[in-house]
């Protein structure tokens, strides 16, 4: 096991890594920017090194400074957390060339799953379904119609140079496709100077379901079942849960197996997440791999009882995972709410500032992961996550009840948070009935 590691991150996840290390008996070196100077979680690290100014590009994202800090901190490995440098394969390579362990997958595996095209190829190789579509650009309307009939309507036309919804059209049948084709290519030409268009199956009201995987350097890859992250607002996950409430067991099993196959094909180890979308007929399609620990990892920890952070560190140190897939059985239901410093009355504008008082909820089935304490100032430079509230109960119904109880107990004074939005979601009948897809929150807020 490592004697000492550096945490190349901040806030909640830095604290999470510190906690794991303290339990493992591993010393920690925290880095911080000037904006995070004096943050209370830094006191829990064995050493803290300032690496730059508030701007992430001058501190947490500066590979040279992070490596220098690792050198003067005399560590054997670096935990990148999530965000910042966590999925930067170049950084992982630099670590390797400096003989510093990287707590995550190899740079090669990270590249293989990180690039959209190679990830799609990987999925095909592993026999994992991807969203059906054209393999490349479409030459003309006739080809568009032919492919659309092949993959089935509705289809989505996308500009290859696109972004921001420009050059994007949904077509429900071949008549609609004809006009959509004209509009999309014209718009793409006008917007990007490139009329190139490709076709994908359009998934209506998809659910976002992801499989947590965990592998070691000895060829073992396990899955910790799934998380449902369909409750999103503008592609930002708000609430995550496990198990996914409407997923048939056979599909759940297929998805988990697919994720493990994909990871093995990629030579992937450490913790990782294979993301899928699931349509209304429970067909699932691979989207991407997150080659790092995720914000929502606690829900999988609660239902499986496995500490993912400790496992990640052990695996990086070369240990073999002492697990059997058959023993990884989910128990009960876990839900996580991300408590962000945002103003629900001002279109969820980030709301940094001083927390005059915080009282965390407690009691049976409640876990609170947060770096915020009374007097802590949420800086305006980084994401607005103040804490993660996680509950674990035998059933989903009880988990919702406990979450509502805990959210009402949580007091964060001085800044506005997303708590009212969470309470609104949790009071919603569609949420109770698990009739949730990625469009649910926006429909709820609009209605």
């Amino acid at each position, binding site marked *: 096991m490592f004697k000492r590691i550096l945490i190349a991150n901040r806030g909640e996840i830095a604290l999470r890594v510190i906690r794991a290390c303290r339990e493992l008996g591993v010393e920690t070196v925290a880095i911080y920017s000037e904006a995070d100077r004096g943050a209370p979680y830094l006191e829990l690290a064995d050493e803290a090194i*300032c*690496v730059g100014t508030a701007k992430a590009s001058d501190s947490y994202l500066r590979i*040279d400074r992070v490596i220098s800090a690792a050198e003067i901190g005399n560590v054997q490995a670096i935990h990148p957390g999530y965000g910042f440098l966590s999925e930067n394969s170049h950084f992982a390579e630099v670590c390797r060339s400096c003989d510093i362990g990287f707590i995550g997958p190899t740079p090669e595996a990270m590249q293989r799953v990180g690039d959209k095209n190679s990830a799609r190829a990987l999925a095909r190789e592993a026999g994992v379904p991807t969203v059906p579509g054209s393999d490349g650009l479409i030459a003309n309307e006739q080809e568009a119609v032919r492919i659309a009939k092949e993959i089935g309507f509705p289809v989505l036309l996308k500009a290859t140079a696109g972004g921001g919804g420009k050059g994007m059209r949904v077509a429900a049948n071949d008549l609609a496709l004809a006009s959509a084709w004209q509009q999309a290519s014209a718009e793409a030409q006008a917007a990007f100077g490139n009329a190139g268009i490709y076709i994908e199956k359009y998934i209506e009201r998809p659910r976002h379901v992801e499989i947590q995987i965990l592998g070691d350097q000895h060829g073992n890859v396990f899955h910790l079942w799934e998380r449902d992250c369909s409750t999103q607002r503008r592609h930002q996950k708000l609430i995550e849960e496990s198990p996914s409430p409407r997923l048939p067991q056979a599909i759940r099993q297929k998805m988990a197996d697919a994720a493990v196959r994909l990871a093995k094909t990629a030579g992937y180890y450490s913790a990782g997440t294979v993301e899928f979308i699931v349509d209304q007929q429970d067909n699932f399609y691979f989207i991407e791999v997150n080659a790092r620990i995720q914000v929502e990892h606690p829900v999988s920890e609660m239902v499986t009882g496995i500490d993912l952070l400790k496992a990640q560190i052990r695996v990086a140190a070369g240990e073999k995972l002492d697990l059997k897939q058959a023993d990884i059985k989910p128990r009960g239901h876990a839900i996580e709410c991300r408590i962000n410093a945002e103003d629900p009355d001002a279109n969820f504008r980030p709301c940094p500032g001083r927390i005059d008082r915080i009282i965390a909820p407690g009691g049976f089935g409640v876990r609170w992961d947060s770096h915020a304490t009374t007097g802590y100032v949420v800086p305006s430079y980084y994401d607005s996550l103040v804490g993660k509230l996680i509950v674990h109960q035998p059933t989903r119904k009880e988990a919702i009840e406990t979450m509502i109880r805990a959210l009402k107990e949580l007091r964060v004074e001085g800044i506005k948070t997303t708590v009212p939005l969470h309470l609104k979601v949790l009071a919603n009948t569609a949420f109770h009935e698990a009739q949730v897809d990625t469009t649910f929150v926006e429909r709820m807020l609009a209605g």
Partner: protein
Amino acid sequence: MSDAPTPVDIFDVKKVRRLIELMKEHDLSELDLKQADNRVRIRRGGEVVAYSAPSAPVARPAATPAGGAAAAAPDRTVVIKSPMVGTFYKASGPDTPPFVKVGDRIGPEKTACIIEAMKVFNEIPAGVSGQVVAILVENGAPVEFGQPLIKVDPEG
């Protein structure tokens, strides 16, 4: 930091608390704010002094907070801080003389020290002219970003 948008409510406890924290931070014994008809006046600490007397012996510099600048006598010196994380060297080699030593007069272009980071030896220019007052870091010591390295008196 979002202050309550209340225009003038000096009875806002939060505000008063922040004032008191300010006082504690600076070890003030009394605070008196007036604006038109509004007034906030706070005193703290041991012996309360007579008010009408022309004395008013206020303020003691508190225990200087860690990392913070001293509140005491005005300090004219300027500090050269480390622009990166790395290892501090006062000379280019074990047998070469230091770039600067106490008493030297230096210009802004003068190399003040070297910070080694990732096997690269970065020469750090002084960035200021004046007389070197103190070298704050041991040779070969690790330094973090923003750490004070060398004290210079610009008027020296």
